[in-house]
């Protein structure tokens, strides 16, 4: 491996981390603003112009808070919980293709930290580890509410991972690859997967709500029943990490959603742009398009959060096991039949 590649990847990874952090930071502001707007309010507008410095003020406030440890024998695990949540939320970004390629100083820079051929499996693996963040945090809090919340969160995540995996299988049968880069490349122009897999997309969307613990599936932290859920005992920046991880994983899961179903960095007319304006402008527009799409999904997450009330626990389980999973299996069968017919025709 030559040095230039290491430097290139290093810069790229730092940039991706920075952008993820920035997006997560400003998602907190966006969430409060959108919540306010949907409720006919204005939202935070005092820190900076129109509230633009609010995330910094929030961060500063969290830093200034007292660092509290509950009376627990598992002090180490208590610290590990938020760390796992945060690092897992960030790790997924490694395999996401942010764009096709850029040509800088005569080098072709691939806009992806690493292009492994099992990228999708990697994403699922990391996602399933991220439940440990909540599980460990809730366990180490030595508090019945936190433990209850951790149990809810893990059973919810496990249930919805099944449906999520099944919805992806139908997509894989179509694309024939697990590499996110290839999946993105296959959806060239307007050839987006959502047009072929609308049901799969819907199931995936619902499951990603559940996986990121967003309303209507935020049973893990439902204030009315469990105080604060798994982060009841947390304070200061450890609490901040949990909250931040939620927004970071929302950002990442929106990105995966866009890459899998909404064409990633593809946009109609990209060939024309590349032919007439060159590779770099075409790909910079591509990155912008990717961000526009994923911002829409982040907005959608928030929009749903401030519309739909939280599900009851039995409703959640019924929706997961009795509705989504049968639907996903039916989707697989229909996809299989259609592919078979298309191949024979």
């Amino acid at each position: 491996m030559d040095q230039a590649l290491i430097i290139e990847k290093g810069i790229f990874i730092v940039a991706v981390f920075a952008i993820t952090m920035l997006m997560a930071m400003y998602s907190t502001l966006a969430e409060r603003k959108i919540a306010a707007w949907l409720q006919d309010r204005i939202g935070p507008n005092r820190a900076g112009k129109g509230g633009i410095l609010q995330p910094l003020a929030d961060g500063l406030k969290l830093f200034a808070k007292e660092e509290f440890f509950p009376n627990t024998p598992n002090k180490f695990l208590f610290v590990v919980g938020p760390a796992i949540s945060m690092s897992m939320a960030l790790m997924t970004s490694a395999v996401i293709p942010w764009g096709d390629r850029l040509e800088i100083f005569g080098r072709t820079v691939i806009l992806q930290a690493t292009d492994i051929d099992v990228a999708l499996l990697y994403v699922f693996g990391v996602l399933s580890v991220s439940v440990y963040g909540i599980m460990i945090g809730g366990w180490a809090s030595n508090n019945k509410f936190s433990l209850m919340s951790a149990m809810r969160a893990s059973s919810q995540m496990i249930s919805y991972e099944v449906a999520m995996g099944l919805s992806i299988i139908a997509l894989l049968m179509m694309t024939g690859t697990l590499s996110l880069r290839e999946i993105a490349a296959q959806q060239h122009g307007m050839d987006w997967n959502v047009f072929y897999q609308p049901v799969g997309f819907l199931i995936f969307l619902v499951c990603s709500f559940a996986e990121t613990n967003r309303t209507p599936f935020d049973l893990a932290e439902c204030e009315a029943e469990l105080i604060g859920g798994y982060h009841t005992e947390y304070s200061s920046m450890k609490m901040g990490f949990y909250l931040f991880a939620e927004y970071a994983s929302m950002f990442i899961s929106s990105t995966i959603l866009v890459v899998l179903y909404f064409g990633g960095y593809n946009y109609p007319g990209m060939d024309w742009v590349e032919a007439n304006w060159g590779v770099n402008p075409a790909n910079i527009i591509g990155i912008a398009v990717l961000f526009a799409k994923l911002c829409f999904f982040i907005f959608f997450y928030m929009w749903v959060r401030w519309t739909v009330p939280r599900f009851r626990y039995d409703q959640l389980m019924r929706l997961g096991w009795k509705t989504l999973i049968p639907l996903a299996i039916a989707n697989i069968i229909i996809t299989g039949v259609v592919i078979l017919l298309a191949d024979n025709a």
Partner: protein
Amino acid sequence: MSIETISLSGRKKEVSNKKMNFWESLYLVAIVKGLFITIRHLFTRKVTIKYPEQTRELSPVYRGQHMLMRDEEGRERCTACGLCALSCPAEAITMTAEERKPEEKHLYREEKYASVYEINMLRCIFCGLCEEACPKQAIYLTKSQVMVKSSGKREDFIFGKDKLVMPLDMAIKNTQTKAAN
């Protein structure tokens, strides 16, 4: 009309506990409907009043900070009869009466006056009963929108005569405008 179907508000709805069919149990239609309702609110006018810059429009019967009035000659009207204190439901008013000296005739209208007159703003509920009770029309609740300032000391909320009595130049101006009309 039977008692079950009467709806006084006109908004009574029968609760239905029928079992949901498969499509309803996906909650999709209901959620999409809800999303359309909330997105409409994204574009409606916001009801927030940005307080220090904007102030709320007050009702015509708004009652603000009290004022102890002076008459046309600039003399204090209050005669320390104590009726306002008696009528005050919050027991916010206290006063000390004093006899007027002959050389103070230009200061106080009646032969007895309040040397100390205090309203505890932490107790006052701005009901205006003191104003109603006063036989000398000495105390009024103004339309002033200046709120009582926050403070860490209780003493700061006890408003004495220095804060309550109408400023002299205001009394002079009032007399002048009255004379002009």
